[in-house]
């Protein structure tokens, strides 16, 4: 599809659409907003993961040991994550609108920020913050699963050596978690990169320039400007870029647990 000159008229009869060679690809790279979107998407995905990781790790540490009410706390942690993203988007849209609760709350705290959170350059950081809120529990879940594979004997040995809790985290927990945690960070980055629903619902369309991330851009190019060929070319380029983390992910998954074959 990336090689065809498709618009809303030729789409119905796409077999006969004019062949346009690499023109769509050239346009996507040189004169469209795609490079900008790609940059936005990459920085959005990385920043969100970086901010979400500490919250997720600390949260996992707090509920690893047995204590009263642990099951309840574990469930509560999951709530923002399991709420559908289209609801998250609507909720924050209401909370953040100029007359909304966020600004009133800030005002009550003495911070006079009558900000328009949903337009202009600040909207990028709004998106990062809301996505961190919605998705840190993914890192929490992966970390918790990793923590549960660490045997109590390691901690008891550390206690005998008289180390502090901080040293325990630094020298026992983090090294043991390296595998599951790096997988969690990789997957989390991928999810954020691919997140369409949240920016789409949170900002509406057309999205502000600052949150024109790649999935949004492809959607708008295809279904609002009706440049289907250009949209498809963008998709193909994005797929090629995504192949890199996807291959890393693939190599880290035990594809085949059957003993008679080599492991992936």
């Amino acid at each position: 599809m990336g090689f065809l000159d498709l618009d809303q008229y030729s789409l119905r009869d796409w077999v006969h659409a004019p062949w346009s060679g690499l023109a769509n690809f050239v346009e996507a790279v040189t004169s469209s907003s795609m490079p900008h979107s790609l940059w936005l998407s990459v920085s959005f995905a990385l920043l969100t993961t970086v901010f979400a990781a500490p919250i997720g790790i600390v949260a996992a540490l707090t509920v690893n040991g047995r204590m009263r009410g642990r099951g309840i706390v574990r469930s509560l942690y999951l709530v923002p994550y399991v709420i559908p993203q289209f609801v998250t988007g609507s909720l924050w849209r209401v909370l953040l609108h100029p007359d909304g609760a966020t600004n009133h709350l800030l005002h009550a705290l003495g911070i006079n920020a009558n900000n328009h959170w949903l337009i202009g350059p600040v909207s990028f950081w709004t998106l990062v913050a809301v996505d961190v809120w919605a998705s840190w529990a993914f890192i929490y879940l992966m970390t918790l699963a990793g923590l549960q594979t660490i045997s109590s004997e390691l901690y008891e040995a550390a206690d005998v050596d008289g180390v502090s809790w901080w040293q325990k985290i630094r020298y026992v927990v983090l090294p043991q978690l390296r595998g599951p945690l790096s997988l969690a960070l990789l997957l989390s980055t991928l999810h954020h990169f691919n997140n369409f629903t949240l920016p789409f619902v949170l900002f509406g369309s057309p999205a502000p320039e600052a949150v024109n991330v790649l999935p949004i851009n492809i959607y708008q190019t295809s279904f609002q400007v009706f440049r289907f060929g250009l949209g498809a070319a963008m998709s193909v380029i994005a797929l090629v870029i995504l192949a890199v983390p996807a291959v890393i992910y693939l190599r880290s998954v035990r594809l085949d647990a059957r003993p008679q074959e080599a492991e992936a």
Partner: protein
Amino acid sequence: MSWRARDPQAILPRGLNAVAICAIAAFALAPVLFMVLMSVTPDAEVAGGRLWPSHLALDNYVQMWSTVPLMSGLANSIAAALTAAVIATAFAVGAAYCLTRFSFVGRRPYLASLVTLQSVPHVMLLLPLFMVFSSAGTYLGLPLVGTRTALVITYLTFALPLATWVMVTYLRKIPESLEEAGLIDGLSRFGTLWRIVVPLSWPGMVVVLVFSFLIGWNDVVFASVLTHPDTRTAAVQLQVFGLSLEGGALPLYGQLMGASVVCSVPVVALYLVFQRYLVSGLTAGGVKG
């Protein structure tokens, strides 16, 4: 030293642990509680940013059904998502059984493709799928765009690989010796699948069913392109409703929040009921629900 008696898995000091739990829980729950609170606040007060309602406006929950065609949206969501989930689960069990019990040419590439598909962004499949559906209308005379069938097919494209992969990780843990015993006792292959594997793997099937259902329930992008106003899912209705409030004279934010609560409750309830199974499935498959 009181904490000597604690579970050695508890790493943070007791006081710090309590503080951290409170801080994280507040961070996670405050916006959700606000959502519930705003859903019983009169519309105008939400729009004015009032933090505490002057009176409980429970009629938000009554009016919203006529403001947005929410009932038909929920019906569409359930119909499309549930159909896709049931089909995906049925096929996933069969496919995963073959993938874990037999070896055949192309098995490893098949497994690899299941995993790789998890990292393909949905938006990128939107265009090709849209083309296929509209071509089906042009060339085969099958009007698919705008129907629930199109949605079911779309959700299956994502639910099937996910469901199969989670089932594969699950079926691996079931020892083959049970099936061998069944085969010796005269069961056919299908007999072992139906009488031995399926009863043993129902927790995995629950996980797969719920995850596949959520793919459809949470989807906005496909439903927004592939539906007509009367086949719209709840997700799209909520999104359109939220957008329409910007230009409208009377911002109905209270009702919007009420509708949001209604759309979240089934999902949160599903998670809380099946939490134990879902979490293990989530981390095993390395997927997002």
